[in-house]
């Protein structure tokens, strides 16, 4: 399990729409990221982004529906770690997500997940799937100041 993954071979998971799946996805992605030399600070950011995206998928997307799955794909991309998370929900567009930093939204109880993903990852794309669902693709590159060893 500690060996470095083949960079050309994505790891693909199909997970139930449950909170346990959030933990499973985070653990698996972090295991892969660590094997590719990401340092502690990057790992924290990646882990948080994966949790937020998985919560969006199983809760807001699939609404804990046992018939629906959350998909996770992890692969190396241009020297970074690309993580794609899909759900089978109604779908959403980034432009429809309110800005949580706007004064009128500061005291909202929810709506910060996408903002945090964007803050912690280097790239983020969201697209609505046909006939249903959402695909969130995020990429993290190793931070130079993070003490990571790319040759690890």
């Amino acid at each position, binding site marked *: 399990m500690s060996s470095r993954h083949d960079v050309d071979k994505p790891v693909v998971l199909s997970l139930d729409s449950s*909170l346990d799946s959030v933990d499973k996805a985070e653990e698996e992605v972090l295991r892969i990221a660590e094997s590719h030399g990401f340092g502690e600070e990057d790992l924290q950011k990646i882990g948080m982004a994966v949790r937020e995206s998985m919560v969006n998928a199983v809760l807001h997307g699939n609404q804990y529906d046992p018939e629906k799955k959350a998909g996770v794909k992890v692969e190396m991309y241009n020297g970074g770690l690309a993580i794609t998370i899909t759900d089978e929900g109604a779908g959403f567009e980034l432009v429809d997500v309110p800005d949580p930093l706007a004064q009128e939204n500061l005291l*909202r109880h929810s709506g910060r997940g996408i903002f*945090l993903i964007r803050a912690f990852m280097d790239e983020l794309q969201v697209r609505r799937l046909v006939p249903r669902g959402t695909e969130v693709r995020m990429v993290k590159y190793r931070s130079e100041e993070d003490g990571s060893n790319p040759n690890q």
Partner: protein
Amino acid sequence: MSIKASTRQVEEVTVVDLSGRITLGEGSTVLRDTVRELLGRGQKKILLNLGDVTYIDSSGIGELVSGFTTVSNQGGQLKLLNLTKKVHDLLQITKLYTVFEVHNEEAAAIRSFT
């Protein structure tokens, strides 16, 4: 490890010592129930000690905000004590650091309640 919460009374202020993870599910539920229970007992001066909170996600942040607004709406005060760097950074990037009153020293925090 999920969250643990214990309360103690210091003068008129109820200090809630939290440890573990405040995340969607049990973590945020425990925080919500603790604040509601205190309000139900008429305790409206609440200091959340987050010194041993190792992790907080957007649901946990939402629960902190919810607690803050609920207590404020009932004429009380909810303040934060001992933020770890991770939690401090999260509140900073979400601009909530300016919303919450944050303290690093318990005695000074207790004195700040009016």
